[in-house]
Structures are given as C-alpha cells and as structure tokens.
C-alpha cells in the first residue's frame, strides 16, 4: 500500500510538472475539439493527431496522447447528446437517453452528468491501473512465447464475441487482418512477403494507414451517402449546466456500477470502451425498477455508459503497460507512438522508466480533471462547432488526415495506401463486415506470428505445447469456451438484442 502511494507520488510529481500539465490540457482540448466532430471516432482522432506529438519529449508526448484519447471520447459523448448522430461508436448508447434529455431541454444536465460520471470513473480506474500494474508485471515474467500467443488468441476471440453481427464474419475479419499484417519483410529472414515486388510494400503496411483508411476515409465516404439533413442539432441556448440534487442521487448508483463494469471489461484484451458502454446500459436497464424510462431520457442511461466507457478506456492501458499487448486499436497507436520515442512497451517499462510509467498513470487522473474543467465551460464552443455544415467539414478532415499520414514518414505512398483502405472499409460495411476485429488482428499479427514461431521452435515442432503448459492451456480453454458460448443460439439471440438497442 505504501509502495503504491510512493509510486503515485512519483507519478504526480512527474505529471504535475507545468509542461506536462500543459501537454495534458492541450491534448484533452484538441482531442475534444476533433472528437466532437461527427463521424470521427476515437481511433481516427488519435491517428490524426499522432503527428503533433512527434516533436515532444517521450513523457510529454504520451501524456498528451492519453489526453487526446480521453478528450476524443468525451467529445464523442458531447456530440451524441447534442446531435442525434453519435460522434463515435462508444457514444452510441449515450445517444439513446442523452439526446432525449437534450430534447426535453436538459442537455446541460446530461452533459454535466456525463462529465462527472467520466471523472468519477477516471479516478477509480487510475487507482485500479496503479494497483494492478505491479502484480501484473510480475505475471508477465511467467509468460513464455506460448502463453503470449494464447493470450493474443484470447484477445482476438474477445473481439469476435464482442463484435456485432455474425461470429463467422468476425473470424473472417480476424484472419484477413492477420494476413494483411504479414505483408512486407519477414522478421527472421528478411524475405519480402506478398509484396508483389512493390518497394512501397517492402516495409509492410503502416498501422496508421489502415486505421485512417478504415475508420477515417471509409466513414466519410459512407456519411456522404446519408443525407446530412437528418442531423438534428439541439436548438436554443443550453442552460442549467448543473444537474439537480435529484439527478445526482438518481445517477450515483449507475455511475458506480458503470465504473465496475467498465474496469472489468477494459482490462480484457479485445474488449474495451464500446462493449463496456453497451454492457453497462443493458445492466442498468435490467436492474431498474421502471425500465420503460430508458430511451426516454433516463439520467442513469447517460451516467452508466459514460462511466463505463471512461473506466474501460483507462483500464485498457493495463495490458499495454504490463504485458506489452495492445488490447485495442487506440492502444496500438500508443505502441506506435512509444516506438517512435524508442520505448518498447512491456513489463520492463515500469522497472526501467518508472517516471514514464507512473507519470502516465497520474496524468490519467489529471486528464480527467481537465475534461471536467474544460468541457463544462466550453459547451457553447462545441455547439457552434457542430453547426459547421458537413459539406465543409469533411474536406477539412480529409486534408488534415492526408497531411497527418504524409508527415509520419514523409511518404506519399502511405497516403495512397490509406486511400485504398478507405475503399476496402467502404466495401466491408456494404457487406456487414466489422472493421474493428480486422484492425486489432492487424496490430497483433506480427507479435502473434513471432510468438507462434518461437513457441513452436522451443517445443521442437510440437503444436500441443499450447495445451500442455498450464497458463496457456487455461487461456485457450477460455477462448474456446467463449467462442462456443457466442455460437450457441440462445446467447446469440441475446447478443443481437443488445446490439440492436
């Protein structure tokens, strides 16, 4: 316990450095600014803003990126309360009750509760991350290649189970992601794989290009099909930001439960913010005494998913910082950022760079505080941003993304690759394939292959090694169990129900 406090104290001394507070504030601010724009999700926001952190010192850059992440998430919630289009996937649920509240003239209360719920969840999650960091890092030492491989399989299976739509199609997306990740030079022999003799492909496809294409460009192309007239922005001035005492009493239980759900789901690889907000909302509705209020502006319906997605967003740092495995696409971008600054994510970060590790954790709490401070007074600014017509917004996003991608390697071919993935993403949505598992598999692909090869080599070609080592066998068993559960007709129906809502 005292060790935990000492570590947190170290963290706060790093995070409270004026520069780092500045980066944190700036990150949260620009993250919200971009995240508010409709049709740009968290992944696209972080990918877009990645280049602006390149020039900073490592600690500052990561603190700023974390700030961008929370900001983007909160910005998405603001959009879904004020407009009936969610800014991003995690806010779909917030949209249900939040927008109803806004139509009843209670947009202020909805936004304030969302901010307070996020802040509370953020505080709890910071402690969870700090408390679990040390024990999980020691678990990581027990992990060999076989265990790492099985853990990643488990993560991908989670992504399959938690994706909406058919399980089979999600598995297909995983395999496609793994296959795409293998384009480029082989790790061991350096042989060019599936490069079609194109020099542009010899280094492989950059993750940012895929993410930007599938989540950024494809989204824009799809939005162009939908008439933008259907956007209903809440009219009139937003007044009464402070929720009433009754609101707080109603929401407090939901916030606490949402935080628990989010923290649990956030730690799991492949899970994350989207699912946890769905789960928290459904849970809240199920235990509510009068569930018919949900969807008609129930404050619990805003509080629970907001708390859950923020807790999950933060807890998803745990697998990254302790095991070095990015559990979702945003964390994969963090890996990219860390690599650029010469940091290899994994258990050694905590022992070798304690200031970075604990500084980041402390900055999570600060980031959440910033969100409350900047968002409530700035609601008016976000509203006016939402008034910008989409016909002017989307060219700006495209141009910004192009410059962002180009600036990473100064390479025009990266821009072309992301255009191709924009078309791929458009095609995928037309056939109801979910892009999220594809992107996660793309990220984990190289790590998985490396560990698979090593495990097989150590076991002298014996594939049963994954089942004879106890930890690995446990992880595989869990993955298989989950898959069977998801394929069972009864559960499948329940799953569809949840996603239809």
């Amino acid at each position, binding site marked *: 316990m005292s060790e935990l406090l000492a570590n947190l104290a170290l963290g706060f001394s790093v995070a409270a450095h004026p520069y780092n507070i500045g980066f944190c504030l700036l990150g949260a601010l620009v993250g919200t600014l971009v995240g508010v724009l409709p049709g740009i999700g968290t992944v696209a926001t972080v990918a877009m803003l990645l*280049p*602006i952190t*390149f*020039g900073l010192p490592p600690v500052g850059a990561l603190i700023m990126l974390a700030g961008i992440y929370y900001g983007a998430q909160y910005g998405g919630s603001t959009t879904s309360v004020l407009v009936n289009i969610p800014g991003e996937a995690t806010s779909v649920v917030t949209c249900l009750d939040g927008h109803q509240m806004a139509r009843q003239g209670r947009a202020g209360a909805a936004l304030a509760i969302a901010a307070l719920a996020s802040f509370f969840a953020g505080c709890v999650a910071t402690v969870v991350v700090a408390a679990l960091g040390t024990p999980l890092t020691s678990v990581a030492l027990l992990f060999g290649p076989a265990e790492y491989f099985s853990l990643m399989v488990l993560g991908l299976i989670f992504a399959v189970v938690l994706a909406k739509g*058919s399980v*089979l*199609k999600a*598995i*297909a997306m995983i*395999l*496609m992601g*793994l*296959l795409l990740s*293998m384009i480029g030079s*082989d790790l*061991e*022999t350096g*042989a060019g*794989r*599936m490069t*079609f003799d194109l020099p542009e492909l010899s280094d492989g496809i950059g993750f940012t290009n895929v993410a930007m294409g599938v989540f950024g*460009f494809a989204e824009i*192309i799809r939005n*162009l*099909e939908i008439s*933008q007239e259907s956007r209903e922005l809440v009219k009139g001035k937003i007044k009464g930001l402070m929720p009433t005492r009754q609101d707080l009493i109603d929401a407090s239980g939901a916030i606490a439960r949402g935080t628990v759900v989010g923290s649990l789901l956030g730690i799991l690889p492949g899970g994350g913010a989207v699912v946890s907000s769905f789960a928290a909302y459904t849970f809240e509705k199920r235990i509510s005494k009068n569930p018919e209020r949900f969807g008609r502006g129930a404050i619990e319906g805003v509080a629970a998913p907001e708390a859950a997605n923020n807790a999950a967003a933060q807890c998803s740092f745990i697998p990254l910082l302790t095991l070095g495995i990015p559990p979702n696409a945003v964390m994969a971008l963090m890996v990219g950022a860390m690599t650029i600054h010469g940091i290899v994510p994994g258990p050694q970060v905590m022992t070798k760079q304690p200031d970075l590790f604990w500084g980041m954790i402390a900055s999570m709490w600060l980031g959440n505080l910033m969100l409350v401070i900047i968002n409530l007074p700035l609601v008016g600014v976000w509203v006016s941003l939402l008034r910008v017509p*989409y*016909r*002017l917004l*989307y*060219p*700006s996003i*495209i*141009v*910004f993304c*192009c*410059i962002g991608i*180009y*600036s990473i390697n*100064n390479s*025009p071919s990266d*821009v*072309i690759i*992301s*255009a191709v993935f*924009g*078309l*791929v993403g*458009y*095609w995928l949505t*037309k*056939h*109801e*394939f979910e892009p999220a598992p594809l992107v996660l598999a793309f990220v984990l692909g190289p790590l998985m292959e490396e560990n*698979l*090869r090593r495990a*097989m*080599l150590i076991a*002298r*070609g014996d594939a049963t090694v994954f089942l004879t080592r106890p930890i690995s066998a446990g992880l595989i068993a869990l993955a298989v169990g989950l898959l069977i559960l998801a394929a069972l007709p009864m559960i499948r129906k329940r799953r569809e129900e949840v996603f239809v809502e």
Partner: protein
Amino acid sequence: MSDGANARPNSGGFRFKVRGPRDFYGGLALIALAIVAIWASGDLPGMHGFAFGPGTAPRLFATLLAVVGALVALSGLLFDGPPLEDYAIRGPAWVIFAILAFAGLIRGAHLGFVTIPPLGLVPSTFAAFMISICGSTEMRWVESLIAAVAMTVFCVVLFVYLLQLPFQLWPWY
C-alpha cells in the same frame, strides 16, 4: 480488392437462389483474397525442420481465410439476408481522387509519360480540399473557396510553424 457486387444477382443461370447476397458475395471475395495471398506467398520457403519459414504463416492464415470465407458464402446461400446495397459512385470517387491528388502533388509523381513536379504543401492542400468538396451535392463555389483558403492557412500554420515539420511549402523551393 475484388468486388463481389459486380456479379449479377441471380440472372436466371442459377439453379438455386442466393438468399443472402451480402454474405454470399462477401464470402466469395474473401476466398478470392485468400487465393491471391496463397499465390503471392507461393514462392516463399515453408517449414524448415521445426522452424517456420517465411511462407508458413501467410499460407496457414490464407488457407483458414479461404475456409471461413467459404463458410460465410455458404451461409449466404442457405439463409435469408438483406439484399446488396447500392454503391455510391460520386462521393467515393471524388474523395479518393482528392486523396490521390494530394499524394501525387506534394512530392511530384511520374504517371507514364506525364510528370508532375513537386508542388509542396500549399497547392496540394488547396487542391485536395477543392477536389474532395466536389463529392458533396451541396457544394457552393464561393463558400468552398473561402473554406479551402482558410484550411490551407490553418494547416500551414499548424504543421509548419507550430509543429516545425519539415514540409516543402511551395513549388519553387
């Protein structure tokens, strides 16, 4: 990526009806992708004793993808599903054209016998903005031009002056 949608939906030649065309053609496209991957990694050495060769994993995952793709296509054959959605042409075409134009203009490009000189950040940003805005049916000229200039100025200030990224701004230096 090959496009499953251009196959004619049951134009009489089929003995059976495709019940879920989205899954059916989606699955077929995945099989095609898997076949391309197997072909492209065909010349890579495979297993070498206990060790994986560079070609082992790609072929392994491509084969699995073909199998799962076939299952998806089969489920599209057997179970009812929604019809294929129409593809919009105008929006995607302008958006993709804008992105490609940015890529081609910023550092210059050789397209067969045409050579584009490197134009730098300012012209490419402006051009990409103006091209992509054509994808919207609600485009208005004056407003678009003002927005394009504003966005170009914003990007130059942000990326070149604030972030100090080494970009060439204009064609002449």
